[in-house]
C-alpha cells in the first residue's frame, strides 16, 4: 500500500532528477562540446581531465573563495537580522507588528526577478534613489556613483538584495517558533537569576535550535545557488569579478560550449554542499520521525 502511493512520486523524481544527475556525473568525465551537442561526434571519455583542468585553474579557486564568502556573508546576515526581527516583533504593539509583517511578506512573496529589477533601479548610477538619499547626508556625495564598477561593491549590493528577500522567511518562521517557547521555562530561568541574554541563550536558543539548523542549512543551499540575481543584475554577462560558482558553471557550459567542464564545476558545487546537507538531513529526519 505505501509503495503504491509512493510509486508515482518516485517515478517522476527518478525521471526528472535521477536521469539528469547520472548524466551530470557522466558528462563531467567526458569531452562534450558543440560537435557532441549537435550529434556530429560521439562524446569522448576523458577520465579526470575536466577536473584536473578546473582544479588546476587559479580562476576557479578565486570563484570558489568568492562564492563561499558571498554565501557565508549572506547567510550570516540573514540569520542574524531574521532573529533580531523575530525578537523585535514580540515586543512591538499590535499595529506595528501588522505593518512590519506586511513589509516582510511583500518582500518574501516578491519574485526574485522583480526584486532584482527593483534593486537595479534603486542602485542606478544616474537616477538611483539610493545615491540621491546618501548624498543628503552631510559630507557625502554619491551622485553618479556606479555601484557595479567593481566586484566587491557590486556583490555587496547583490548580497543586500539576497538578504532582503531571505530575511522575511527566516523572521516569520522563527517568530512562529518563538510562540512555542514555553513561558514557564522563561519565567523559571528568570527566577533563577538569568538576565535577558541568559534567558535567550539558555532557554530560547536551545528550544529553537532545530528550526535554526533547518533555516541555516536551507539558506546555505539557496545562497550557494544564487543565479538570477547576478545574471540579471549584470545584464546576462557577469564580469570576471562577479562570477560565482553558479554563473561560472553556466558560462563554461553555455557561453564557451564546454558542457563537460561546466558539469565538473556543477558537480564540485554539489560536493561542497554535501557537508552542509548532512547536518540538515539529520535534523529533518528527526522531524520526519515525529509524524
Amino acid at each position, binding site marked *: 500500500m505505501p509503495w503504491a502511493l509512493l510509486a508515482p512520486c518516485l517515478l517522476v523524481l527518478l525521471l526528472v532528477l535521477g536521469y539528469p544527475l547520472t548524466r551530470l556525473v557522466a558528462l563531467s568525465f567526458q569531452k562534450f562540446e558543440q560537435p557532441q551537442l549537435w550529434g556530429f561526434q560521439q562524446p569522448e571519455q576523458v577520465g579526470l581531465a575536466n577536473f584536473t583542468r578546473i582544479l588546476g585553474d587559479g580562476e576557479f579557486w578565486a570563484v570558489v573563495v568568492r562564492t563561499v564568502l558571498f554565501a557565508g556573508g549572506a547567510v550570516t546576515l540573514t540569520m542574524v537580522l531574521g532573529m533580531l526581527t523575530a525578537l*523585535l516583533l514580540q515586543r512591538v504593539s499590535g499595529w506595528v507588528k501588522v505593518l512590519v509583517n506586511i513589509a516582510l511578506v511583500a518582500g518574501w512573496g516578491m519574485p526574485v526577478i*522583480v526584486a532584482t529589477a527593483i534593486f537595479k533601479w534603486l542602485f542606478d548610477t544616474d537616477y538611483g534613489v539610493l545615491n540621491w538619499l546618501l548624498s543628503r547626508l552631510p559630507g557625502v556625495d554619491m551622485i553618479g556613483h556606479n555601484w557595479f564598477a567593481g566586484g566587491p561593491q557590486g556583490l555587496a549590493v547583490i548580497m543586500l538584495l539576497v538578504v532582503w528577500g531571505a530575511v522575511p522567511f527566516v523572521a516569520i518562521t522563527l517568530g512562529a517558533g518563538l510562540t512555542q517557547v514555553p513561558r514557564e521555562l522563561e519565567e523559571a530561568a528568570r527566577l533563577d537569576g538569568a538576565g535577558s541574554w541568559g534567558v535567550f541563550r539558555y532557554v530560547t536558543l536551545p528550544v529553537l535550535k532545530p528550526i535554526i539548523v533547518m533555516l541555516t542549512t536551507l539558506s546555505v543551499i539557496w545562497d550557494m545557488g544564487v543565479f538570477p540575481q547576478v545574471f540579471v543584475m549584470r545584464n546576462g554577462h557577469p564580469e570576471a569579478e562577479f562570477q560565482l560558482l553558479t554563473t561560472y558553471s553556466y558560462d563554461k557550459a553555455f557561453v564557451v560550449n564546454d558542457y563537460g567542464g561546466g558539469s565538473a564545476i556543477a558537480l564540485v558545487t554539489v560536493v561542497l554542499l554535501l557537508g552542509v546537507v548532512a547536518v540538515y538531513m539529520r535534523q529533518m529526519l528527526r522531524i520526519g520521525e515525529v509524524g
Partner: protein
Amino acid sequence: MTGNVAPLGRRGTGRGRLGWNLLGLLVFATAGFPVYWMLNTALKPARDAIDPDPLFFPRTFTPENFARAFEVADFWGPVGRSLAVSLVVVLIGITVGMLAALAISRFAFRGRKVVIVGILAVQMVPLVAMIIPVFLLLNDLGQYDRLTGLIITYLTFVLPFTVWTLRGFIVNIPKELEEAAMVDGCTRTGAFVRVVLPLLAPGMVATSVYAFIQAWNEYLYALMLMSQQNQTATVWLGNFTTKHGTEYAPMMAGATMMAVPVVILFLLVQRRMAAGLTAGAVKG
C-alpha cells in the same frame, strides 16, 4: 545583541514599548522601501522617474507606464505561458505529492527512512547544477522550447516541496480521528476522504498557492529552455530593455503587474505555510 533582548522582563510597559515601536517602524520603512519605490516609479509619469531629484510622493498618478509595458513587448503571451505552466505543475505536484505524503506520514514500512532521505536530498541539488543535463535531455527528447519540457523540469523542485509540506499538514491531523471513523464502519479510504481530506483542505490550498508561486517565479530553466518567442513572465521582465535602453518606469510597471497578484496570494497563505513548514520541528 544583548541590548536588543534586554527588555524581555518588562514586556508591555509603556516606556520600553515606545522604543521598540520606533525600531519596528524603522524596520518597516527599510524592508518596505524597495516595494514602495517600485509602486512609486510605476505610477508617476516616466519623465518624473528620471529626475535626478526623485519625487518621494508622486504629484500625479498615471497609467502610462503600464500601457508602455504592454507595448514594449507582448505582455500577455509570457504571462499566459507562465500561468499555464504553473497551473499544470501545481496540479501534478499536488496530486502526486499528496499520495507520497500520505505514504510517509501514515504508514510504517521498511524503507520509509530511505524515501524521506531521498526526497529531502533532491531538494539540495542546486538547479543550476541540473541545467546542463536537463538541457541536453530535453534537446534529445525534442522537448526543447516546449512548455511540456518546462513543466517536467519544474516538477524537480515543486514535487519534493509539496511532499514535505503536505506531510507537515497531515501529521498535524490526529490519527485517532481516522481510527474512530474506521471503528464506525468507514474503510481506510472512506475515513481519509470524509475525515482527513476536509481538515487537510486549507493546507492543500496553501501548498498549492506556494507551489504555484515557486513555479511562477522560476527564472533559470525558463531562460535556458525557452526561446525568445516562448519566454515566460520572469524572463520577459529580466529582458526588459527597449531601443532606448532600460526604461525603468515601464519596467517597474511590469514588475508591479507581476508581483502584486503574487504578493496578495502570498499574504493569504503565509501564516499557514509557516505553520506547515515547521510542523513537528519544535514539538519534536
